[in-house]
């Protein structure tokens, strides 16, 4: 569809601006009739936004349909109401502050108005389909409402609806649809179909043009493009902003970015919008205290680079309200588990180290294998502590592979063995995520950081949420996607850019010249269906393109779920520390799936899949326990959550987990056995 414009023939007080997409009444309150350039087709919505108001007048914009063709240059009356209406072939209504619902009544018998119940022509889907094309429902809403959705917490929903249809920013549409032999006309005000306001329009009698009388207080209106081409939600729509287009917010600067179709922000206003969003997310959580040590996880990727830049800006002296926490930056080198792909990530890692140093805060590079590096207690050992001292030099000296640190070298071998023992890419990815999280937590713990900030944007979190659901981690999705994750006792994970879309991140980075560094992941160069996470990413981002509210819908699901942490040492998974979700009744998926694997095995005798394994103990009941302190597979499973069970099931031998992880598991098992033994003597069952 071409761009929708006003007809060049209009009332004498009107001046058309911006390529005939804006109508401005220069003086008076009258002689301000405008028309659509082309006749409307059935179902086509002609949408305008009130851009300017002028006080001192009574009455507001009028809108409707007419069969007078403006190309015929007929003599224009002063007003749409009543003059144009009186000329016939015109159906016009005034937009009022309220009460825009119009009841259609047949002339005459006013006592027996046939009160019809109308169905919104808009349906309830996020994407509205009309014969001329489809567009996002959000386009019908005033920008103010859209912004308030982003800024406000989900709890307080009041006051955002208080705007009047006649206010600046209000979006008013007109359309007709064919009902039988005639047509009925409808108003759509700020996303709401007001119902039929005129019926029996003889649409076959001649083309119907939209009429807008820029009357009374209404001073300037702009046509909102619902059908312009290239509407698909590409990564960046920078190019699509037409020259001369003004910013939606300040209305003076030229627009550079479209945050949703047809809502264009200029550079300055976009910055304000993004920075505000970032600050508001941190601010409303009331969790980050002044002077608090915060470990910022940096991967080199666009989202964490964006986060790092936002933090640096927020901490700088020029910031409007300076952020007051103390950041330290950490990069985790995951090459130990990626080396099947490439070893030449060297230059990228050097660049990451340089970028970290440039920021000017304490920074460090750690190796993923440190997550399983042996230690004495539950955390990094004293010996490792020296290597963990912060540095402004991005020193990686102690974790250099050439280092004499035997433990670390051993860990590197061990972690490679671990990953090659995991059969599926899905489980490998899951294990990597859990180990990364664990290392961040331990470094933060040892170095006295009470928070870890990660650069997960909304798009990423939506992917994670659905991917978690598909891996049986439903009990963890709320914790995994909320602003704060409190599963560890003394380190809290926070996600300050969770309200950003990946598109906003990309635009922010490009406007600020934020550099991001590409490092391969486990699924780099693999096909779409190589892992559940990879598949889910393709699925969600693909759906987002056609249904722009997909990501926000998924995030909305997460927000309504409980993140409550359960207390007690046995209520969390020994591997991922998420709530243990395996204490379920007989009628449950877990029970059913366990039964399935039992029932289709031999009732006595050897289990297949066990016999062909070199490590099989010959027990034949699937409980190979030739290794690791004699722990049985079942025992290991018993302290893991459903999702971690799925991951360990993909290992050749679940009891071959790294010793460090295993120690905690066996500790847990010993504890619960102890508890079982003394169960009868414990007075308070809650006192565990």
């Amino acid at each position: 569809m071409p761009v929708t414009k006003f007809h060049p023939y209009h009332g004498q007080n009107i001046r058309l601006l911006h390529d005939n997409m804006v109508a401005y009444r220069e003086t008076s309150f009258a002689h301000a009739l405008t028309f659509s350039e082309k006749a409307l087709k059935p179902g086509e919505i002609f949408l305008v936004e009130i851009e300017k108001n002028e006080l001192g007048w009574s009455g507001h914009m009028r809108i409707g349909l007419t069969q007078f063709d403006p190309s015929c240059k007929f003599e224009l009356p002063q007003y749409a109401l009543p003059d144009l209406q009186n000329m016939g072939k015109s159906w016009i209504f005034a937009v009022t502050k309220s009460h825009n619902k119009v009841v259609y009544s047949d002339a005459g018998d006013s006592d027996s108005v046939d009160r019809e119940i109308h169905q919104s022509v808009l349906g309830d889907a996020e994407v509205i389909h009309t014969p001329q094309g489809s567009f996002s429902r959000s386009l019908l809403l005033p920008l103010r409402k859209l912004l308030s959705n982003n800024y406000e917490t989900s709890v307080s929903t009041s006051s955002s609806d208080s705007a009047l249809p006649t206010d600046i920013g209000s979006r008013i549409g007109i359309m007709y649809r064919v009902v039988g032999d005639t047509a009925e006309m409808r108003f759509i005000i700020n996303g709401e179909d007001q119902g039929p306001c005129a019926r029996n329009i003889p649409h076959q009698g001649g083309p119907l043009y939209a009429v807008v009388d820029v009357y009374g207080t209404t001073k300037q209106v702009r046509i909102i493009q619902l059908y312009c081409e290239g509407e698909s939600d590409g990564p960046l729509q920078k190019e699509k902003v037409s020259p001369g287009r003004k910013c939606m917010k300040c209305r003076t600067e030229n627009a550079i970015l479209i945050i949703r179709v047809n809502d264009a922000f200029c550079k300055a206003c976009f910055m304000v919008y993004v920075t505000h969003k970032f600050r508001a997310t941190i601010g409303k959580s009331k969790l980050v205290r002044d002077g608090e040590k915060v470990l910022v996880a940096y991967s080199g990727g666009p989202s964490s680079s964006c986060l790092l830049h936002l933090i640096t800006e927020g901490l700088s002296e020029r910031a409007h309200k300076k952020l007051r926490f103390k950041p330290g930056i950490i990069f985790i080198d995951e090459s130990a588990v990626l080396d099947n792909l490439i070893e030449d990530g060297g230059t990228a890692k050097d660049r990451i180290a340089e970028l970290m140093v440039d920021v000017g805060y304490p920074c460090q590079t750690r190796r993923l294998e440190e997550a399983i590096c042996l230690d004495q207690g539950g955390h990094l050992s004293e010996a490792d502590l020296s290597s963990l001292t912060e540095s402004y030099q991005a020193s990686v000296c102690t974790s250099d592979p050439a280092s004499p640190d035997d433990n670390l070298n051993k860990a590197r071998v061990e972690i490679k063995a671990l990953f090659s023992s995991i059969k599926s890419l899905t489980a490998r990815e899951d294990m990597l995520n859990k180990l990364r999280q664990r290392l961040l937590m331990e470094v933060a713990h040892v170095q006295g950081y009470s928070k870890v900030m990660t650069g997960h944007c909304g798009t990423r979190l939506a992917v994670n949420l659905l991917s978690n659901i598909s891996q049986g981690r439903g009990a963890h999705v709320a914790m995994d996607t909320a602003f704060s994750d409190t599963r560890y006792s003394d380190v809290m994970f926070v996600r300050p850019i969770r309200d950003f879309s990946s598109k906003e991140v990309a635009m922010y980075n490009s406007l600020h010249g934020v550099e991001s560094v590409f490092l391969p992941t486990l699924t780099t160069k693999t096909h779409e269906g190589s892992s559940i996470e990879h598949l889910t990413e393709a699925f969600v981002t693909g759906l987002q393109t056609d249904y722009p509210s997909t990501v926000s819908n998924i995030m909305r699901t997460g927000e309504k779920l409980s993140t409550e942490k359960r207390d007690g040492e046995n209520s969390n998974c020994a591997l991922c520390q998420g709530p243990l979700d395996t204490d379920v009744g007989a009628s449950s998926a877990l029970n059913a799936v366990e039964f399935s694997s039992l029932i289709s095995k031999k009732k006595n005798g050897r289990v297949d899949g066990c016999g062909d394994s070199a490590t099989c103990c010959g027990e034949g009941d699937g409980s190979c326990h030739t290794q690791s302190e004699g722990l049985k597979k079942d025992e290991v499973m018993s302290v893991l959550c459903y999702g971690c069970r799925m991951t360990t099931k993909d290992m050749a031998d679940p009891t071959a987990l790294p010793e460090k992880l295993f120690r905690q598991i066996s500790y847990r098992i010993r504890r619960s056995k102890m508890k079982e033994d003394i169960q009868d003597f414990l007075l308070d069952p809650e006192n565990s």
Partner: protein
Amino acid sequence: MPVKCAICDGSAILKRPKTGDALCKNCFYYAFEEEVHKTIIDARLFTHGETVAIGASGGKDSTVLAYVMKELNDRYNYGLDLVLLSVDEGITGYRDDSLETVKRNQMQYDLPLKIVSYEELYGWTMDAIVQQIGLKNNCTFCGVFRRQALDRGAMMLKVNKIVTGHNADDIAETVVMNVLRGDIGRLRRCTAITTGAEGSLPRCKPFKYTYEKEIVMYAYFKKLDYFSTECIYSPNAYRGFARAYIKDVEKIRPSAIIDIIHSGESLSVKTTVKMPVQGNCERCGYISSNAICKACVLLEGLNRGLPRLGIGKTHKERRKIEELSKEGNVNPPQSGAAERQPTSIQTPVLAMESLSLDRRKPDVSKLDF
């Protein structure tokens, strides 16, 4: 070298989609049936002496369900009176064949059969509805009316429970779909094995943990006859996406279907989130989170010549119809074809006030500028 059956050492002829185990035909039947039995027992779905209606569509799920229910009822002495219950929507060429299948099943399984038609229940056939509203939204009608039709038919038969053939794939798909839509109310409810509030008939899903592929496999080897019942009217877009996604995830990890159901079962909703309260429809008594259920709203629209009424979720329409219903002027859904003409209804004064009419021509001279 022939693959050995994991259970009996005989020669295996299939690999279980759910577990990957190689099994012979008989051991597969055994595993399949035992799992359904376990589901029934664990969830305590039935009590001795109950009459249970099997929702029979002639499709694979319900055909296998009828067969297995009959089998288990005899084998484990559930003591249930089973009846087949079928709904005839009146879709040309769709049910005609499947009803034949149901009728054949009735004879094969020796179970009584009751067929209720839309015409009987609502005064409208699906074909007539499609004529009214076009192809676009009919799945709304189809689904809503079908759910109710089964209940109404079941009530006629005076049964205690209904069982339906919803399988694990269906439930996993519904979980994903509700995540995509952000519909927390449905998300929480959709994994329940038994649904139905007080006053309405409980519906159970004995196939909750049964894979669709295994149902097909079971029907295939048992040579059970079914009619492929993809609704000919296009399904909800999100459901289609969810379905495609589930199929892809299942390829990566076959347990994913059960994993998703586990996820659904272990979601806990924030206590601060308001959940729709399930009640019963004022008009027909069917379970509904609104005073008037969806079917009654849709039907009202049809009968008034406004068939799109109630297709959206706008609560306004519902409220209006509730108002109207209080006036006592609205036809109950049982009214049928005879009363299809829209009736003239007095406008409630209160509603009139909020709907100010701006059609009067303003007297411009009286306006002060």
